[in-house]
C-alpha cells in the first residue's frame, strides 16, 4: 500500500483501515457479499513460527549429498488391496476442471506424474486429459456428485470423500456462470451460465454412522481395490479425525484455513476454520489415541509453500502433504509478466484472487479458450515437477540435518516454536525453554 501521500498528522484507524472501508463501500454499492478465490490472506500462526533443531553433539546429522533420506510414502494401507505409493510426500490437492482450465488440469497431472506423486480431481468430475496425464489420480466424491459415475470411479487410483475444505468448512462449492461453458455445464448436468452453488452436505447420508455404510458401498463398487480418503476442513479436527477413522477411512486429509478455493465468500475464507499449524497436532493426537497413527495415513494441506513447510508437517506427524495454491503459482498464477493485464481487471500480479470471474490472464483459473491457451500444459508440467523436486530436496535437507534417514522419521522433538501461540498450537517448546503452553513443566 502506498503511504507516500500521508502526512505525519494523519492517523489511520487500525479498526477501520482502508481495505475495511473499501469493503463497506463495496457492500453498500452492490448488496452482495464479496466472492473471491485464493485462501486466507490475514496473517495467521503458521509454519514460519517453527524452527528445526539441527543435529550437533547430541544428534548425528546425515551427510547432505551422500546419505540416503527416503521420501517415499505408501497411502491406503489399512483396507485397500492396491495402496498408492508415491515417491515424494508432496501431492496435488483437489481442484476442479471448471475452476481451472483443461490445460491447467493437464499440467497438474503431467507435473505430478513426472515426480511420481498423485493429483486429484475436483467438483465436476474426471476429464480424459487429467486421467490421461496422471499416473496416480485421486477421484473426489463430493456433495454435488457432479460428473460422478462408476466407470470413472473404477478408473481412479483412490477415492477422496470430501466433507469440507479448509477455505470454507461447512460450505459447498461455487462456480459462477462466467465459467459454466458448454463443456463444464455438460459435465455437471447444469444449464449453461448458471451461478452454480453446490450443496454443502452429501445428499444420501448424514453423520458418521451413515458414512461408514457409504464407504462400504464405495469399496463394494470398486471391489475393495483402491484406498478411500476422507477430506475435512480443519475445525473440530480432533473429533472429526476420530470419526473419519471410525467410519473406515484409509487416509484422512486435513485442510487448514490457509487452503485455497476457486470461489467462495470472503467472510468464509477469513473467518471459518483453524490454521493448518493448529490442526495437525489435533489430527495426530486423534490418530494416536486410537492407535491408528501411521496405520491410517494423514495428509495435510493449507498454506504449504516450501520444503521447510513440508518437513514441519512431517515432523508434526503427517505422512504427506497436499499443495494447491502453490502448485498454481508454479504454473504461472499471479505471474508478474501479466501485471498490466491484471491491472486492467482491477487487480495486480501477486494480488489476483478473482478466480471466479474467469478472466485470469495467466490462463489457469479460466474457461476462456483464448486465455487458457496461454498455459502450455507441457511447460506447466515441467515447472510443477521442478517445484515439487525443490520442495522434496529442501525437506530432505532439513531431515538429514536432523539426522533422519526418512522424512517420516522427523518428529516434534526436532522443533521449537518462536512464539507462545505457535508453541501452544504445535505442542513444541517455546524456543530457549522447555515450556509447551498448556502442558506441565
Amino acid at each position, binding site marked *: 500500500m502506498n503511504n507516500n501521500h500521508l502526512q505525519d498528522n494523519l492517523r489511520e484507524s487500525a479498526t477501520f483501515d482502508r481495505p475495511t472501508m473499501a469493503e463497506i463501500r463495496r457492500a453498500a454499492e452492490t448488496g452482495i457479499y464479496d466472492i473471491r478465490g485464493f485462501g486466507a490472506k490475514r496473517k495467521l500462526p503458521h509454519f514460519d513460527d517453527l524452527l528445526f533443531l539441527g543435529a550437533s553433539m547430541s544428534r548425528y546429522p546425515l551427510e547432505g549429498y551422500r546419505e540416503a533420506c527416503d521420501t517415499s510414502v505408501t497411502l491406503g494401507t489399512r483396507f485397500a488391496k492396491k495402496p498408492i505409493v508415491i515417491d515424494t510426500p508432496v501431492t496435488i490437492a483437489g481442484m476442479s476442471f471448471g475452476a481451472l482450465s483443461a490445460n491447467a488440469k493437464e499440467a497438474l497431472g503431467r507435473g505430478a506424474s513426472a515426480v511420481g506423486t498423485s493429483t486429484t480431481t475436483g467438483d465436476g468430475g474426471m476429464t480424459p486429459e487429467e486421467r490421461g496425464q496422471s499416473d496416480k489420480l485421486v477421484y473426489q466424491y463430493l456433495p454435488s456428485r457432479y460428473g460422478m459415475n462408476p466407470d470413472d470411479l473404477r478408473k481412479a487410483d483412490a477415492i477422496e470423500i470430501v466433507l469440507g475444505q479448509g477455505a470454507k468448512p461447512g460450505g459447498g462449492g461455487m462456480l459462477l456462470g462466467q465459467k459454466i461453458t458448454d463443456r463444464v455445464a455438460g459435465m455437471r448436468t447444469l444449464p449453461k*451460465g448458471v451461478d452454480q452453488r453446490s450443496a454443502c452436505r452429501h*445428499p444420501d447420508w448424514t453423520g458418521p454412522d451413515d458414512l461408514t*455404510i457409504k464407504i462400504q458401498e464405495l469399496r463394494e463398487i470398486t471391489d475393495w481395490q483402491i484406498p478411500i480418503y476422507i477430506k475435512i476442513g480443519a475445525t473440530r479436527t480432533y473429533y472429526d479425525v476420530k470419526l473419519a477413522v471410525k467410519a473406515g477411512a484409509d487416509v484422512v486429509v486435513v485442510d487448514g484455513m490457509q487452503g485455497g478455493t476457486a470461489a467462495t465468500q470472503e467472510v468464509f475464507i477469513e473467518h471459518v476454520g483453524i490454521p493448518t499449524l493448529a490442526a495437525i497436532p489435533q489430527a495426530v493426537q486423534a490418530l494416536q489415541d486410537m492407535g491408528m497413527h501411521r496405520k491410517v495415513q494423514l495428509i495435510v494441506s493449507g498454506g504449504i509453500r516450501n520444503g521447510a513447510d513440508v518437513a514441519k508437517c512431517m515432523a508434526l506427524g503427517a505422512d504427506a502433504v497436499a499443495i494447491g495454491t502453490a502448485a498454481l503459482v508454479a504454473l504461472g498464477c499471479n505471474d508478474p509478466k501479466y501485471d498490466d493485464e491484471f491491472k486492467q481487471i482491477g487487480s495486480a500480479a501477486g494480488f489476483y484472487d478473482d478466480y471466479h470471474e474467469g478472466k485470469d490472464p495467466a490462463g489457469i483459473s479460466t474457461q476462456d479458450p483464448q486465455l487458457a491457451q496461454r498455459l502450455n500444459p507441457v511447460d506447466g508440467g515441467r515447472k510443477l515437477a521442478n517445484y515439487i523436486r525443490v520442495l522434496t530436496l529442501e525437506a530432505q535437507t532439513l531431515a538429514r540435518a536432523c539426522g533422519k534417514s526418512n522424512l517420516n522419521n522427523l518428529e516434534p522433538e526436532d522443533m521449537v516454536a518462536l512464539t507462545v501461540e505457535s508453541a501452544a498450537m504445535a505442542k513444541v517448546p517455546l524456543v530457549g525453554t522447555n515450556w509447551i503452553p498448556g502442558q506441565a513443566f
Partner: protein
Amino acid sequence: MQSINLAEHSVRQLNQLLHDQYHHFDQPQWQVSATSGQHNIACGLNQKLEVNIDGHVGYFCAGMNQLAHVTVHGNAGQGVAENMMSGTVHVKGDASSAAGATAHGGLLIIDGNTGARCGISMKGCDIVVKGNVGHMSCFMAQAGTLVVCGDAGEALGDSLYETVIYVKGKVQSLGADCVEKPLTKKHLMQLKKLLKSADTEEDPSQFKRYGSARQLYNFKVDNAY
C-alpha cells in the same frame, strides 16, 4: 438362475460374483434371499443382469447401477439406486430417504412410499413413486423426471434446476423457486409413457406439473443470499 442366500454368503461375495459378470457374462439371472436388511446389496452392477432380491434391503441397494434390472421384493433403506446410470430398479415395498439420489439415468420404480429427499440432486434418471414422497424431494434436482402418484411433503423441488416433477395428489408446500407449470400435450405424452413403464393405470391428466422458475440461477446484485 443363480441363487445366493445371504445367510450363507456375505454381501461382498454376492457383489463380487455379480461384478464378475462384467468380464464373463454367462449368468443373466440371479436370485438373492435372506437379505436381513443388509446394506450395499447389488451395488455397482454393470452388466445386463436380472437380479431379484427377496426381502428387505438396507442402505444403497443397487447403488450406481448400470444396465442391470434389480427388483427388491420388500422395503429398501436409504439411498436405493443412488447415482444410478442406467437399467431399472424396482422396489415392491416402501423406500427410505434419498431414493434415487443423484441418479443420472435409468428408471427407479417405488410401488409404495418414499421418505424424505426422494430424487435429491437427480441428474437425469426417471423416478416413479406409486405412493407418497417425503419432504424436500427433488432438492437441487438437475435433470430427469419424478412422478408421484400420491402426495408430496413439504418443500417439493426446493432450489430446482431442470428436473420435471409430476404429482397427482396434494403437495404440502413447494420449495424455493419451484412453481406449478402447465401440463402441455408434450408433458402428457411423457407422463403417459412413464406411467406405462411403471405399469400403473393412473390417468396422466389428473397430475400437475412442477418445475423451476429459474429465478435462483444467477446472483442478483441487490438480492443475493
